[in-house]
């Protein structure tokens, strides 16, 4: 028995270390994950005023803060029995799209770009330099930050959302500026898509998906589940889906989510592609068609679906921006909960994100539960490693570690997000009997 240790999985969000046990015949005997990023947001949210949750939970993750902000707002509003007017919803959608763009572009160009090359791969910076996209990428980070600033008031770690409304007004000049900047984003989106298409499409299938795909329905009230081999998704009300989920601890502090009776399932760009309708915009429709023709869902091409979403988001934003209300009037929801709990859901860049709060009559938080995309994907990652193990270069340790990291990176994991499991305090304990009792259908 030997142990292979990987101190840090590089080019992902957060610090994650791995230990792999291999027996004398090179078979995989076990894999364990470890991270010391435990910050217990599920615990420190308790006792906080409901209206502060969108601000606080945005601090869960410096990369997808906006997703947490929006999911949290929705959870709060469900509890307060408020649904924001159309114009506010549009502002929030635009905010979410801009954050998608920044997140996806950063992941594609900074984190997973070098994975397109064969081992030993260059580092991100020299890879970006070589593709000629370095300057455009940096220029666009600036654009996207400014766009978030215009819409939300702060370029980083999300702001603007207040239960019942949106605190940052947008002037007509600002709206114009958004449109101009988005044109540059669209340019980078196109180039990124082309680059990924060219580099990925000719590669062989490596990692076919054998788990159900899960995504939030576009209107947000249902969860779509596509079991492997099926064409038509099953539809479940959001709250029913949430109540069925079972969480357990994987490695140290990592949260793993299962959906009985399926077990592990996949969320994220790949799942969304197979569950969402095809788009109406010229560039992304073309890309969608091209992707439809390449065949079955395969994890080795997950980045390609991410690149497609960049294109889609930039085009969607282009159509949405002229509809954003100018200098809307502010409104705050009264802090009188009509329910004792609230559930918020948002399709974050990495996949379905759920925030669930319970609170008292004064709208002060009693419990917090956060189900992140990475926690949901962790089951698939863990289950897949043994499946793909025989295909990896086992003799060369460095090469093996690169392949494993490359595999992990296709999920675009976000470590700060997924480590908020409260040990031994989970209301939905994951003993096998309990898991057996609960099923989605």
């Amino acid at each position: 028995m030997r142990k292979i240790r990987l101190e840090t999985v590089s080019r992902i969000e957060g610090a994650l270390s791995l230990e792999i046990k291999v027996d004398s015949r090179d078979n995989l005997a076990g894999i364990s994950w470890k991270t010391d990023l435990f910050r217990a947001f599920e615990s420190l949210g308790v006792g906080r005023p409901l209206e502060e949750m969108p601000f606080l939970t945005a601090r869960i993750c410096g990369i997808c803060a906006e997703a947490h902000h929006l999911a949290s707002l929705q959870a709060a509003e469900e509890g307060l029995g408020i649904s924001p007017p159309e114009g506010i919803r549009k502002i929030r959608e635009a905010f979410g799209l801009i954050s998608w763009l920044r997140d996806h572009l950063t992941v594609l160009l900074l984190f997973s770009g070098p994975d397109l090359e064969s081992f030993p791969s260059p580092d991100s910076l020299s890879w970006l330099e070589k593709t000629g996209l370095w300057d455009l990428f940096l220029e666009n980070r600036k654009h996207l930050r400014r766009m978030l600033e215009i819409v939300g008031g702060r370029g980083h770690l999300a702001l603007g959302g207040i239960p019942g409304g949106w605190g940052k007004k947008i002037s007509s000049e600002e709206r114009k500026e958004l449109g101009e900047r988005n044109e540059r984003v669209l340019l980078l989106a196109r180039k990124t898509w082309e680059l990924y298409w060219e580099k990925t499409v000719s590669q062989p299938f490596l990692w076919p998906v054998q788990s159900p795909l899960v995504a939030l329905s576009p209107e947000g009230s249902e969860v779509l589940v596509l079991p492997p081999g099926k064409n038509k998704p099953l539809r479940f009300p959001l709250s029913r889906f949430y109540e069925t989920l079972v969480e357990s601890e994987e490695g140290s502090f990592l949260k793993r989510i299962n959906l009985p009776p399926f077990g592990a399932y996949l969320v994220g760009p790949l799942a969304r592609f197979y569950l969402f309708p095809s788009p109406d915009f010229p560039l992304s429709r073309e890309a969608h068609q091209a992707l439809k023709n390449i065949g079955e869902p395969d994890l080795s091409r997950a980045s390609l679906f991410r690149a497609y979403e960049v294109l889609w988001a930039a085009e969607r934003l282009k159509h949405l921006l002229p509809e954003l209300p100018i200098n809307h009037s502010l409104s705050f929801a009264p802090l009188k909960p009509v329910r004792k709990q609230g559930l918020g859901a948002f399709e974050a860049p990495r996949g379905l994100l759920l925030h669930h709060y319970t609170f008292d009559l004064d709208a002060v938080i009693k419990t917090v539960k956060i189900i992140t995309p990475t926690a949901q994907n962790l089951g698939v990652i863990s289950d897949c490693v043994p499946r793909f193990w025989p295909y990896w270069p086992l003799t060369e340790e460095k090469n093996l570690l690169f392949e494993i990291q490359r595999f992990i990176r296709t999920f675009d994991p976000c470590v700060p997000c997924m480590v908020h499991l409260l040990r031994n305090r989970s209301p939905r304990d994951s003993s096998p009997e309990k898991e057996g009792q609960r099923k989605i259908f």
Partner: protein
Amino acid sequence: MKIAVHNLLSCGGCDPVFFLEESPEFFRKAEVIFWNKVKDETLKVFRKIPDQGIEIGFLCGAVKSPEHEEVVRLFRRKCRTVVAVGACALWGGIPGLLWIRKEGPRPLSSLVVPDLSIPGCPPEGSTWTVYLQGLLSGRPPGPSEEPVCQECPRDRHPFRLSDFKRFPETEPESRGCYLSLGVFCAGAVTQKGCGARCLRAGYPCLGCYGPPAGLTARGERLLSAMVSALVPQKATEALKNWRDPAGSLYRFDLATHPLVRKGKCGRSD
């Protein structure tokens, strides 16, 4: 110029702002020795670098595990200049609220003395620039002496309070100072530099830039100010209705509170 960047107990949101958005020129000129967001190098490689072999080391996040402590000490040894970035590194940040339950992270400054401390959750791009330009020109700046109120667009006037309010309970389009509306706005006890962004987006100041230079016990001072403004006859009622006292006074810096440092605070559930 050789640089290293590392995130300790953090959300990972501080570092990309500067390097990718605010001053990519600096970033391009620099030679990145260690930053796991862009490079495959591990700590093993970092340990082999000669002492003082790196010009600037940027550390974001708070300290909790022995591994974090090791990295912080390693940075102090390998880097000629150590820059602490963000509220978590400076005062423990929001995870510091975990001290209410007896166990939380500590700020980086409890282990080593950084040469420069950049405040904010997250530091705004302009703040990065001011601090880093100062550092490179040999005059590293400290905290500002002035509060966020200097940058706040809302109208200030003398006030008395009959009740404490949560900000969504105020009139949405009101232009008056949040304190005068009874909201625990941390602006008066927070250093300026952010451009009062939260206040321009409907929020009160939540205090992420930390205390102005020379101000101690900012939480207690804010409390004093608010309670002193209460009309005595209404005070008992107002105090009864006040929600989340610890969170509204020490949102970003509970980890540096004297009672926490002395181990005299925290309840077990």
